[in-house]
């Protein structure tokens, strides 16, 4: 892990994150997302727009991990004013994304990136951090629980008025295609089980 450097990514270099975003989408499929996900090519432009907007705020930041020149992971952190409902400090943070290349998982890189996020948050004196995790992704939940995170809210999804989810219908018409693995995501031939 000693050949890895972690640094901030300036907003104008956001496009470098695209391959890592695609790798993360594959992971969402592998972890059996409850809601079917978009084709990767459709998702990145939408996600990029979200990043551009959140990085307008000067306290927000993106951290990237590199091995040599190669980008192998990133963390995107959104900063907002104090929460309206919960007791938080005057600023609160949300970990928007934590993405690692498949070969880099399970080696402590997620911990390194989150430690670096914590250091940045300490400089900003931000003491509250929220993270959204897919309910079926038990590994990610355990990872954050070991860092002291607790369940706050559950987000429920559905079709107003009942009936089959349109997300499932769209998935049936045009199944998810990985941008990262041209032959498809191993073990995820039938993401809706």
């Amino acid at each position, binding site marked *: 892990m000693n050949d890895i450097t972690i640094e901030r990514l300036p907003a104008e270099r956001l496009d470098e994150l695209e391959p890592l975003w695609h790798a993360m989408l594959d992971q969402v499929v592998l972890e059996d997302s409850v809601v079917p996900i978009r084709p990767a090519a459709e998702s990145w432009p939408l996600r990029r727009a979200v990043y551009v907007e959140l990085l307008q705020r000067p306290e927000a930041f993106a951290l990237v991990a590199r091995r040599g020149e190669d980008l192998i992971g990133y963390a995107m952190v959104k900063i907002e004013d104090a929460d309206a409902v919960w007791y938080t400090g005057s600023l609160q943070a949300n970990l928007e994304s934590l993405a690692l290349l498949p070969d880099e998982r399970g080696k402590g890189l997620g911990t390194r990136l989150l430690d670096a996020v914590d250091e940045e948050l*300490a400089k900003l004196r931000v003491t509250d951090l929220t993270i959204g995790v897919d309910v079926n992704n038990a590994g990610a939940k355990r990872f954050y629980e070991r860092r002291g995170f607790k369940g706050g809210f559950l987000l429920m999804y559905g079709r107003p008025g009942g009936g089959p989810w349109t*997300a499932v219908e769209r998935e049936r018409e045009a199944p998810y295609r990985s941008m990262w693995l041209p032959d498809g995501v191993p073990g995820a031939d039938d993401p809706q089980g």
Partner: protein
Amino acid sequence: MSRHFQSSVEPDDRTATGVVIGRLAAEQLDELEPLWASLVQHHSALKGAVPFREPGDSWPQMRKLYLEFVDDIRGFCLVARRETRLIAYAMVKIGGPEEVWRTGDKLAELETLSVADDERGGGVGTLMMEEVERELARRGVDDLVVAVEESNGDAQRFYERRGYSHALAWLYGKPLTWRNEKEGLAGDGI
């Protein structure tokens, strides 16, 4: 997505009678404050992972947030009245599309559904949801998310019965506190 949408519905909702549902205009927003306070008190009693602000502290910020949604374009607010008394409100935000989930171009978030203490369990929550869903169908919105507190099993069952499923867990932590305590913790799996 925000985490402010909450519910104070009960599992044994029955049909409500004598209740009129209508639209709330932006200039009537202040009428919601007592129902907001009742919802916060209801949640504080559930003793979730994160403490709630006093309703008087949170209302000005919620009011500001609601102002963005009551314009009938970015969202709408439905209220239920028994005679002249306001007994429930539903605040709906319409945004989207979601970047990961395969939603349509519009994604609705039920920001808040609050029912007055003495009206819970009487079918008002169901009546409000039916009206919210009808309005979304009219607007061609096929996807809805709602956040419920993890300790609020009644609200979770209420939405499950209406076809909604747990999809995402919002976790909350204190990074600095954790750093102080991290000595002795084992390595991670990620």
